[in-house]
């Protein structure tokens, strides 16, 4: 399987603008090689170049760097210089590539005739469009333009366009932060999405805000969050009826009664005020007079004592941070609830400290649902003559009762600028496909003081006849003769930036300024926020559950699919949901007790019914939801949109009654009651991880704060790690209560459950520990931080130092901090992108045949409300120095390389699969089918997805084993660069895809031989341990224990 078969060279030539040259199917050695006709200056074949741009996979707009190789974009990484995400990138961001290479993209302009789409030429399409627009305008009807939250110049253009066309411009985002902005407007007088400084907060309490998944700026917040978690004294409480993935990272889970968040916030505020902890604000007590902890207990089932404790802790945190306003908790009193939390922040004196209005996210122009309904109304009564949609997909995302879909049919002519056939586009009459963001030029001002550039990272894909949305709009305007715009979009954009030139030019001429801006991905300035006072207390009302049924319905956004726009990306479908580890579908989460009552088992087909609708989904039974709650994710259930998304799962929006937030008019996602019953057929529940307990095995370890601080004072700094090792070997006798105490949590349980029968043998009792020779020189390949002073085994043999083994100077290794890992699966997506990992689909995942090289294992030690203990372990090849997989391979297809890597040589592999059997970590993936052969049904890279393949990584063929290589191609590249510059490899020169993309920098890669390297330091720190250490595989991957905070019993 050559890469050239998967990705034909001629395609990339089309790409560099050479058009098709008859090189079809010329098998080697008669491949045609066509040189660039005109070489782009210093662009060489075979070298990857990085282009700065901006991610458009969600409204936030993180800064990204896109790697382009031989003219095609093959990898996205976070832009470390960008203030919004500071180098991290989420799974959705990585999957942007699959949007670019989406095999279901519209191939060109299409016209709907007699209900069927028929391709037309651009000229024809534009003529028709302009004709229709003129017609509409001459008929005195308005022209509506619906776009996503594009911000920046494109927003200006569309606004101007709509104005000139004599119509409305509606910016539609399903997850508009309208309630949050409204609440802030009412309480602080600033209607913006503030900048939450998680890093500074000593205590965070989240009232249903999934700030690590979809709420606000997840990547940036995650970074701040990890900085906070690094401080042992910091504390994180989550208040939600269903334990979100964000909540899973909490120290304490307060499972308040659904809808009780507001009461709890007010109760805490009450305590703070009544006990005068906040300082000042005495007058505010009136606002919360009725919300005594006892009253709150009645409303929320949260003990008054807990309310007091939390309030006191929060007030003393100085600063603390309370966040609210996630989709899952957005009820008809969303604004009231957020206002209550704002009050809490205010009285605790966090406003201006951790809640700042400096670098606010730009949602200002996002329309409220009210505006959408108004537009729908106009459309319905026929006053809208033409509708132009770009980027937004209201037909799918907006509840049917908004009437938008229905109203669309009333509009005489609808134009979609979308590149894919989403539901809204299906309702249109004409498609004028736009370029994908990675192909197009533009900008985005997503946060205050941040002006980031969207730069084309490659020539538009030749097989899609697309135009920049801006150009299309301009062409339409000119054709229909309204407004006055420069001839092209890029001129318009440059015009906008000329304004910027003055501010940021720094004396350069515009050309220089422009180039520099492109190079660094935009310009940004520091902004200072007004720290607003308390402008007014709204009326506080708690949501009442509506409808019949005994379960409260919780709809939450899927962290992978966001509002559903990720649904046609194979990676996002295949990368498991962080909470349920389910893939390729929808499900409903219910509590085991409820399930028992209803006779429902894991995976059973159930019917979730509200008065407005019902969906049939498989049941996911776990204790992470309250017994009186049923939770369903959003984002699936597309009726169109492409092969991966279509007819997969359900769109739970159908369950919503026509209820909106009283104050902001936002959709009330929460507040329905639902009936749950068994039913016949529903999609299958396919999960990558079924067993959710680690059975006291030494996989995910924690270290209590007390022990950690204890360790700092000398004792056990060396014993710590080994103690766990012996734990794994099941040695309660080996060390007394001290050790057991030292490893609370899981290890407490372990010690207990490993109590041996008096007759059973005790480990180590009859074996003589041997002391290793301290001054024995160990060649790099067999170095591991896991080297232990004593070994209960035959003496180690002399490590090999022949060939390259003696002369090697590196030992590549990793350190993974479980305290920072939030389980977000961004690293998994990065790995898929970097290493050409195929997607296999649900049928095979059912058999555990997913190909991902790194997976996030989730172990739930304690799922009861109260002290919360969910642990995430990024699990990939551990590159053991004494690897079990290596010895058993009969053909040396896997062996240990001189730099300590556990190598897998694909073309030597005959596929005995013995290595996988013998791998205790089970991190090896086998090519059960031919995912790389275009002629096979199992081909995983249908054109043009194969364009994304990384030429530096072999595309594996049928019947071979594969696994994490620690991105050997990056290592070689890094070493090469160092060599060219005539220096040694520096720490940080080389990093793996997973480590690079980690929003919380939980993964650190480096050289274990270099004592100064970050990885060496971490690997010898006091929190280190090794997974399944008792097997003495001497892994190259060191894990750092999660810090476990004490949680008071009340």
């Amino acid at each position, binding site marked *: 399987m050559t890469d050239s078969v998967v990705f034909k060279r001629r395609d990339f030539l089309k790409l560099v603008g050479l058009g098709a040259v008859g090189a079809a199917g010329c098998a080697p050695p008669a491949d045609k090689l066509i040189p660039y006709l005109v070489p782009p200056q210093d662009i060489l074949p075979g070298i990857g170049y990085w282009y700065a741009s901006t991610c458009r996979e969600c409204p936030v707009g993180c800064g990204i760097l896109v790697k382009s190789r031989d003219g095609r974009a093959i990898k996205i990484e976070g832009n470390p210089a960008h203030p919004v995400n500071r180098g991290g990138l989420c799974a959705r961001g990585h999957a942007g590539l699959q949007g670019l290479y989406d095999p279901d993209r519209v191939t060109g302009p299409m016209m709907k005739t007699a209900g069927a789409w028929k391709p037309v030429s651009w000229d024809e399409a534009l003529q028709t469009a302009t004709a229709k627009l003129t017609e509409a305008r001459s008929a005195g009807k308005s022209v509506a333009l619906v776009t996503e939250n594009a911000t920046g110049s494109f927003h200006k253009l569309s606004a101007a366009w709509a104005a000139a066309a004599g119509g409305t411009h509606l910016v539609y985002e399903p997850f508009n932060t309208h309630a949050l902005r409204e609440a802030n407007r009412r309480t602080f007088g600033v209607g913006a999405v503030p900048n939450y400084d998680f890093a500074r907060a000593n205590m965070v309490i989240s009232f249903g805000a999934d700030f690590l998944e979809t709420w606000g700026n997840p990547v940036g917040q995650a970074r701040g969050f990890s900085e906070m978690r690094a401080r042992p004294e910091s504390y994180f409480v989550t208040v939600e009826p269903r334990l979100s993935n964000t909540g899973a990272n909490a120290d304490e889970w307060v499972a308040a009664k659904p809808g009780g968040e507001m009461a709890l916030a007010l109760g805490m505020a009450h305590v703070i005020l009544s006990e005068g902890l906040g300082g000042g604000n005495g007058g505010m007590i009136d606002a919360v007079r009725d919300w005594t902890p006892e009253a709150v207990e009645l409303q929320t089932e949260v003990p008054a004592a807990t309310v007091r404790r939390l309030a006191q802790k929060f007030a003393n945190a100085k600063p603390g941070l309370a966040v609210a306003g996630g989709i899952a908790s957005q009820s008809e009193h969303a604004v009231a609830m957020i206002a209550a939390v704002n009050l809490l922040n205010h009285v605790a004196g966090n406003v201006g400290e951790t809640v700042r209005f400096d670098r606010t996210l730009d949602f200002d122009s996002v329309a409220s649902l009210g505006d959408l309904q108004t537009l729908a109304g106009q459309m319905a009564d026929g006053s809208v003559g033409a509708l132009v949609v770009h980027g937004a997909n209201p037909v799918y995302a907006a509840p049917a009762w908004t009437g938008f879909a229905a109203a669309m049919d009333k509009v005489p002519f609808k134009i979609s600028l979308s590149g894919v056939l989403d539901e809204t586009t299906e309702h249109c009459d004409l498609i004028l496909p736009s370029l994908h963001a990675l192909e197009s030029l533009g900008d985005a001002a997503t946060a205050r003081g941040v002006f980031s550039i969207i730069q084309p990272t490659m020539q538009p894909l030749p097989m899609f006849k697309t135009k920049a949305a801006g150009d299309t709009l301009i062409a339409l305007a000119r054709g229909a003769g309204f407004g006055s715009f420069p001839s092209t979009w890029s001129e318009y954009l440059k015009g906008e930036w000329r304004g910027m030139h003055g501010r940021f030019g720094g004396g350069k001429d515009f050309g220089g300024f422009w180039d520099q801006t492109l190079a660094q991905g935009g310009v940004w300035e520091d902004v200072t926020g007004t720290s607003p006072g308390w402008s007014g207390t709204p009326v506080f009302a708690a949501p009442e559950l509506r409808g019949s049924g005994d379960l409260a319905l919780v709809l939450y956004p899927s962290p992978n699919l966001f509002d559903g726009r990720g649904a046609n990306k194979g990676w996002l479908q295949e990368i498991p949901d962080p909470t349920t580890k389910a893939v390729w579908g929808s499900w409903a989460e219910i509590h085991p007790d409820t399930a028992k009552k209803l006779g429902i088992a894991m995976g059973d087909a159930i019917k979730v019914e509200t008065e407005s609708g019902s969906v049939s989904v498989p049941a996911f039974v776990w204790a992470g939801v309250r017994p009186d709650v049923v939770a369903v994710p959003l984002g699936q259930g597309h009726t169109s949109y492409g092969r991966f998304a279509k007819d997969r799962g359900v769109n739970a929006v159908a369950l919503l009654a026509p209820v909106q937030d009283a104050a902001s008019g936002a959709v009330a996602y929460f507040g329905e009651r639902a009936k749950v019953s068994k039913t016949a057929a529903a999609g299958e529940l396919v999960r990558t991880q079924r067993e959710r307990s680690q059975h006291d095995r030494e996989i995910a370890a924690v270290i209590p704060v007390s022990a950690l601080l204890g360790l700092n004072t000398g004792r056990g700094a060396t014993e710590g790690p080994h103690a766990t090792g012996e734990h794994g070997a099941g040695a309660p006798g080996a060390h007394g209560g001290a050790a057991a105490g030292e490893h609370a949590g899981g290890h407490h349980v372990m010690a207990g459950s490993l109590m041996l029968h008096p007759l059973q043998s005790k480990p180590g009792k009859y074996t003589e520990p041997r002391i290793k020779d301290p001054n024995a020189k160990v060649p790099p*390949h*067999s170095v591991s931080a896991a080297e232990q002073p004593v070994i209960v085994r035959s003496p*180690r*043999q*002399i*490590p*090999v130092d*022949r*060939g390259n*083994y003696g002369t090697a100077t590196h030992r590549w290794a990793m350190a993974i901090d479980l305290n920072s890992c939030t389980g977000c699966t961004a690293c998994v997506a990065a790995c898929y992108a970097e290493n050409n990992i195929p997607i296999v689909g649900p049928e095979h995942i059912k058999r555990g045949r997913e190909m991902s090289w790194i997976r996030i294992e989730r172990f739930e030690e304690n799922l009861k409300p109260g002290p919360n203990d969910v642990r995430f372990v990024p699990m990939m090849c551990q590159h053991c*120095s*004494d*690897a*079990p997989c*290596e*010895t058993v*391979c009969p053909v*040396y297809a*896997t*062996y*240990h390389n001189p730099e300590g890597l556990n190598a897998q040589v694909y073309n030597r592999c005959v596929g005995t699969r013995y290595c996988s059997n013998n791998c205790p970590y089970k991190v090896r993936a086998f090519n059960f089918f031919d995912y790389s052969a275009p002629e096979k049904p199992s081909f995983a890279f249908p054109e043009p997805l194969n364009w994304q393949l990384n030429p530096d990584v072999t595309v594996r063929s049928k019947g071979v084993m594969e696994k994490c290589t620690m991105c050997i191609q990056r290592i070689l590249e890094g070493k090469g660069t160092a060599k060219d510059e005539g220096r040694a490899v520096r720490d940080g020169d080389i990093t793996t895809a997973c480590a690079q993309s980690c929003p919380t920098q939980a993964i650190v890669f480096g050289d274990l031989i270099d004592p100064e390297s970050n990885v060496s330091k971490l690997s010898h720190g006091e929190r280190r341990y090794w997974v399944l250490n008792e097997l003495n595989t*001497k892994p190259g991957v060191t894990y750092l224990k999660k810090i476990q905070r004490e949680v008071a019993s009340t």
Partner: protein
Amino acid sequence: MIGMLGKLVDKLLAGPKANYRGVMGVYYYVDDATEAVKTLREQGHQGLSVFSPVPHHDIEHALGQKSSLVRWVTFTGGLLGITGGFSLCIYAGLSYPMVTGGKELISIPPFVIIGYESMILLAGISNLIGMLALARLPQTQSRAPYDPRFTEDKIGIWVPCSGDEARKVEQLMRGNGAEEVKVHG
């Protein structure tokens, strides 16, 4: 076609024409045959060979057979095998140094199995070769006029001799219970 092939096969099976010089006596009873062999050897006849459906120990004694030499061939084969097995492993380990599981390039314990199996293999093969060589197998032509009955229940004694000596031998054989005596050449 098939017919022609058949004729060819027949030719093949008939084997080359050979002319034997000697006396072939056919016996039924083992003790008679033994007697005959004894007396013949007393009269100083060399190169007797006895054909029988099963080996008979007393006839062997009468012939004064030594035990077979095959075992020495087998032994050398085994010796070659074990040394070969080990040296193969060691050479392979050193020729392209590749570390697996942190073990030494020359890790003896696993090599023992290779050495052991190759010892058995070569010993077995050489045992076969030795037997065939010593038993003059495969042979296209018997060293004495062969009779199918020898694989049923008859015993044949072949005495290579000629002229009147042959006649003497014939008399002798008829004397002690040969069922049939035939003089060749």
